[in-house]
């Protein structure tokens, strides 16, 4: 521990500037009307023709130019080494705009690469704009770093991967996969271009319109030695885990704030019984409760990010699990109220709330929902059963 964590979470002028810039950029380039056209205008494309959810690649190019995707790359590897507390500020904005992009997937993969000795070349490429995603989850959707569905064997100095990785986030947008593969008694961490021979991406048909997800088959995929970046994938994943959790939690919080503000606005505009429905306490009080939940989650997110930046590792994992639990639950509650309080229109495809509802629901489950985080927290706070 360097110093006790700063009272202001370390959220200083640089972090504020990036956050405000991101808010402005996204307000301008992805207002909700544009998001709707992008991801939800053509209902049949998703639900009949099973096309991949759409995203704006030109906008992503600008985001790469702005340097967001490489923010977590440390300075030694040619990145900016931005503090987590600044990154969560940015990701909150991405969540608030339901940005379809490989931003979160790439950040999460970066945190894991940054916990290895051998990934500096790959980190440098991420800093240049290479997109990445973690392939570490088995068919049961276990979020435990020690469980996975891909194995590796040695062959002439290389590793050869076989098996299947499930629930890979934004796989179709990722240029490389960061794969955790069973290898003897260890787990090896490999960086593999998505286009490698022997890799097949099968899209999952998910409800969220703002990302893609895939099941990825590995059949005799050769990984050169220099791309095996660690023999202790479990350790790297465990060390990176607080960052992964807090990043998804920040996306949830941003998304939830959009849902709150949009529903509050509707409660002011929509009149029934000669009054705006926000007059009625059955409408007003739940929205206040949603605000309380969102604010708690947001405070816990900044605390967790700050603890990652300045605190000790066990504390960081605890803080991040608290943040993810609170954010998942806050997201679930405002999602529920956002549909219900919009009435019939809220139940339609035409109304924007479903876009955020689905992104939130996906994020709630991702890397463990509130119940999951709490059962892990209980192990450290109360003891193993």
């Amino acid at each position: 521990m360097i110093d006790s964590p700063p009272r202001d979470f370390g959220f200083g002028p640089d972090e504020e500037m990036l956050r405000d810039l991101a808010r402005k950029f996204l307000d301008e380039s992805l207002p909700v009307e544009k998001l709707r056209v992008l991801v939800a205008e053509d209902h049949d494309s998703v639900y009949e023709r099973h096309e991949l959810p759409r995203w704006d690649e030109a906008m992503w190019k600008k985001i790469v130019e702005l340097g967001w995707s490489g923010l977590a790359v440390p300075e030694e590897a040619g990145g900016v080494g931005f503090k987590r507390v600044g990154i969560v500020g940015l990701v909150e904005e991405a969540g608030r705009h339901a940005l379809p992009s490989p931003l979160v997937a790439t950040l999460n993969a970066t945190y894991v690469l940054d916990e290895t000795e051998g990934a500096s070349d790959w980190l440098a490429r991420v800093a240049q704009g290479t997109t990445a995603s973690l392939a570490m989850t088995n068919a049961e959707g276990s979020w435990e770093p020690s469980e996975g569905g891909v194995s590796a064997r040695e062959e002439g100095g290389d590793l050869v991967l076989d098996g299947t990785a499930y629930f890979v986030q934004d796989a179709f947008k990722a240029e490389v996969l960061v794969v955790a593969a069973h290898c003897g008694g260890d787990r090896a961490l490999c960086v593999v271009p998505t286009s490698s021979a022997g890799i097949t991406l099968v899209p999952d048909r998910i409800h969220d319109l703002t990302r893609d997800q895939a099941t990825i088959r590995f059949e005799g995929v050769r990984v050169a030695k220099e791309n095996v970046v660690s023999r202790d994938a479990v350790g790297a994943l465990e060390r990176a885990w607080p960052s992964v959790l807090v990043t998804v939690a920040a996306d949830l919080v941003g998304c939830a704030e959009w849902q709150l503000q949009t529903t509050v606005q509707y409660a002011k505009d929509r009149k029934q019984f000669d009054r705006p429905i926000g007059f009625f306490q059955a409408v007003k009080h739940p929205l206040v409760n949603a605000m309380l939940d969102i604010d708690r989650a947001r405070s816990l997110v900044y605390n967790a990010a700050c603890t990652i930046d300045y605190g000790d590792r066990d504390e960081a994992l605890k803080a991040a699990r608290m943040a993810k639990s609170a954010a998942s639950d806050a997201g679930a509650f405002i999602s529920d109220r956002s549909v219900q309080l919009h009435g019939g229109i809220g139940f339609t495809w035409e109304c924007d709330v479903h876009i955020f509802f689905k992104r939130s629901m996906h994020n709630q489950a991702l890397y463990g929902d509130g119940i999951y985080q709490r059962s892990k927290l209980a192990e450290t706070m109360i003891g193993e059963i």
Partner: protein
Amino acid sequence: MSSPNLTAEQIAFQERARAWLEANPAPETDLELPLSPLELATREQVEYYRDWQRRCYEAGLVGADISESYGGHGHSGCQSIANREMSRAGAPFLLNTVGLSMMIPAVLAHGTEEQKRRFVPKALSGEEIWCQGFSEPGAGSDMANQQTMAVRRDDEWVVNGHKVWTSFAQFAKHMILIARTSREHKYDGLSFFLCPVEGHPGVTIKPLVKMTGELGFNEVFFEDCVIDDSLRLDDVGKGWTVAMTVLTHERGAAEGAGGGISSVHPIERLIALARSSMRNGRRASDDPVTRDAIVQQAIAHEGLRQNARRARVPALNDHPMRLRMQQGVLATELEQSCARLGVDIAGARSTLYKHDAAAPENGYWPLAYMNSYGFTISGGSNEIQRNILGERILGMPKSK
């Protein structure tokens, strides 16, 4: 703890406060001490806390930001530091909560020079305790519906009426009193008085028994009680304005006007209880549902702390009052839900109350649970707080 944003004065103050609190722990006592000021029951308890407040006052921890002409210490921006340090040290609460957090702000904002000099110093030292006479049988949340009448007679006012739920009246020297001086206007017909109560003719104080079985608050009857006009605060008809000054300070004072409510960390306390309670043949601490419930409380507890921390970072607050106005609701409901969970975990033993020798922690859990409603009702109920949050922060139309 680094505090980059403090002034030199504040840093020096903080160091002095911390050092004093370390060197001067609360005196040992055999008295059974209450959970909060609202549970004060005996004279002995009152004297214990009066003594503690006086020490804190003399050490500069009370009245830190108040001008020296009114008995304060003349600092700026130091009282909140003092409050934080007292909480941190787990110091006893300050006895004169109504005096400190309601009367003084009201008198400083609305009072005459004479009123300030007469009332502020003795409230700071704890010599004179204050009570608050706002609520009536028909005027609770709708506080402007006052029926207590004050009628002018030359340089005096004659008061008749009935106040209820008046905490501290049995120990108080004075009352901040709101009364009706005109039936013509609901809000503009109210006036505000600094009313003597102790031994004052025409004032009768009767104790009310709380649901816990303990004494606590009172009802106060006014029968031709005479008050001098010099004890009127601000103009005739300005009572509502003064009351609003009082209420904005009241809620804010709930956190940190004084010491920790309990020196034991509430979550540690729940975990300890779960380890020592059996449930369905195993320790409650091994029951997954109980574990989840405890961790939920822990997250809420941590959330409250981190909210307080974030409230002081302007860049992380889109609306300056949004977090500040939530803390009262969150703190009181956290206390309630923690206590309720304690009752659940204690199981059959939660039926045992204060005077049963086998009661876990002397019946703390059912007592704390029942008492917690005092905080979710008083000072503007949490339903009213939610109205305010929905209206002032989220901008929804008024429910009134």
